């Protein structure tokens, strides 16, 4: 049913993503699909890496570790943006296109007051509305 699964990750918060990563790995095994972990970074130094190149290397390492642990085929796709604060959603959408993914598995928080007021939209909610592939939101 699915051939390629995209999993957006926040590299310095992967400890909070255990459920999402497991759901993605289970689906990948069931459908024999490949998982691409997508992470968006700015060009300035971050807690993860000092340059976009090192950031991409970190993501590749993460993808290999995940693949080894879960016994699935994985890849990393790092996207460097001039303004990740504003462009995150757009970068994810482009990554879905460029990898020809047919499923997105991503984590999100439960909708709260700020979502109701449209103050801080969740990235998952945005992707559900704008991506034309299936989106599995893990809470």
């Amino acid at each position, binding site marked *: 049913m699915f051939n390629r699964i995209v999993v957006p990750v926040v590299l310095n918060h992967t400890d909070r993503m255990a459920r999402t990563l497991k759901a993605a790995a289970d689906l990948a095994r069931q459908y024999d699909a490949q998982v691409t972990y997508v992470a*968006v*970074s*700015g*060009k*300035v*130094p*971050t*807690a993860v890496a*000092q*340059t976009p*190149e090192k950031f991409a290397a970190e993501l590749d390492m993460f993808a290999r570790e995940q693949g080894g642990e879960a016994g699935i085929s994985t890849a990393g796709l790092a996207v460097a943006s*001039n*303004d*990740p*604060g*504003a*462009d*995150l959603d757009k970068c994810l959408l482009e990554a879905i296109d460029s990898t020809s993914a047919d499923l997105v598995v991503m984590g999100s*928080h439960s909708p709260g007051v*700020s979502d109701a007021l449209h*103050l*801080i939209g969740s990235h998952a909610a945005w992707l559900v509305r704008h991506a034309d592939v299936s989106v599995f939101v893990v809470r």
Partner: protein
Amino acid sequence: MDESSSQTDELIAQLEEVFETDYEVGQDNVERYGLDMHNPVFFVSAGLIVLFVLISLLFPDAAKSGLEATKNWIQVAFDWLFLSAGNALLLFCLALILLPVGRIRIGGEGAMPDFSLVSWFAMLFAAGIGIGLMFYGVAEPAAYYTDWYGTPLDIEPFTDQARTAALGATIYHWGLHPWAIYAVVSLALAFFAYNKGLPLTIRSTFYPLLGDRVWGPIGNLIDILAVLATVFGLATSLGIGAQQAAGGLHFLFDVSAGLQTQLVIIAFVTTVALISVVRGIDGGVKLLSNINMSLALLLLLFVIFAGSVSAFMASFGQTLSGYISYILPLSNPVGRADDTFYHGWTIFYWAWWISWSPFVGMFIARVSRGRTVRQFLTAVLLVPTLVTTIWMAAFGGSGLDQIEQNVGQLADGIGDDALVLFQMLENLPLASITSMLGIILVLVFFVTSSDSGSLVIDSITSGGKTDAPVTQRVFWAIMQGLIAAVLIAVGGSAALEALQAGAVSTGLPFTFVLLAMAVSLALGLKHEHELNQAIQA
């Protein structure tokens, strides 16, 4: 052979250790309710902003007299310091262009520029200086020529020499010196972030001098001061600019220049800036900057061709020769006789440029990855100076021509300096269209200052992150508009001018900050140069 290569490895390891810090970007941040803010920079800055606004609203006259007295005292007592610092920073930039460190590439050897040259230049202008070109392109040369508030070097007004000096002095205020100030700050920020891996925030530029202490109270103080200078600089400019733009609208279309019009202008600028920051650098700031530069170019070409090309060529020659022949006497800090001009214009500008340098420098740094130190400095110093020379020759030259030929309102002397541009355009063809274009340019330049300012404040208050939630930059954009509106509506001009004097006064502490930053940058570049040489060997 083995021994020498292991020595080299050891040298490289030793050099790399110098900039190894345990500090992690965002480690002091508070992440709650989906927000991501540096503690204490965000909270102290926000608190102090509210406090200062309240004080200036409750006691506008006392605040104004107090802060203006401070500003005036600073500008008289430290006049030599401002002027010498400007000269030193310019010489420092020229030295870096010539020295071997000029070859260092911002972001490392393999880094590619993130923006095309055209967009890059457009953003350089749109962030800090575009609005001034609109307001002062005609007003400043006209003021110097007619002795509105002193003349450069006390030259006799209304003479041929006064014309050359007026044009030359204007470029002195808008040319190499201000851009050298911006260049040092932006190069330091860009270098320590992109080459040394430190967070993109003002404090990082002091790492070679202060080491890990920059992550503590000293660093917090520097960053908070930068946030306050930027917020109040932008908000008061927006407030005063709204009053001037309302005056312009009144002059052109006879709409009331009262409070309502001013508030509508602030609301308009803030709304567009809000949309721009939400869309981000590529979809907002860059787009608006490019649109605005195209419109400005259109207006420039119109003024050149609607006036007379030969008159423009003559003015251009005078502006350039005036700049070259007066740059040394104008940058001399000792034994000045032209007190009114020297303190009222030059020192005011120097304090102004320096107090804006954290904002403009930070924004330029954000968009300048991938260029070498030499390319960066040459471009940041020369291109804006050349463009400004053309702009001032066209606008200022036309204004001076009208005064000399006794044409139109300008010949009767400068009344309201905000109207001078429109009074000049009035005597050229298609005045209603060009004046409208002028008003639009003024408003959009306010937008491009406000949106880039919000990005800068957002980055500093989130500890150097560029991926903080959009809500935070929205907060800062709204704050600027809100401060401007509340100051105008409740405190009036006195409150606005009080806080503006406060913002300009931060120029004094930042002068010391900038001089130390230059030393720090020199150390950092030297280190990078040694590292590159060791790696090559």
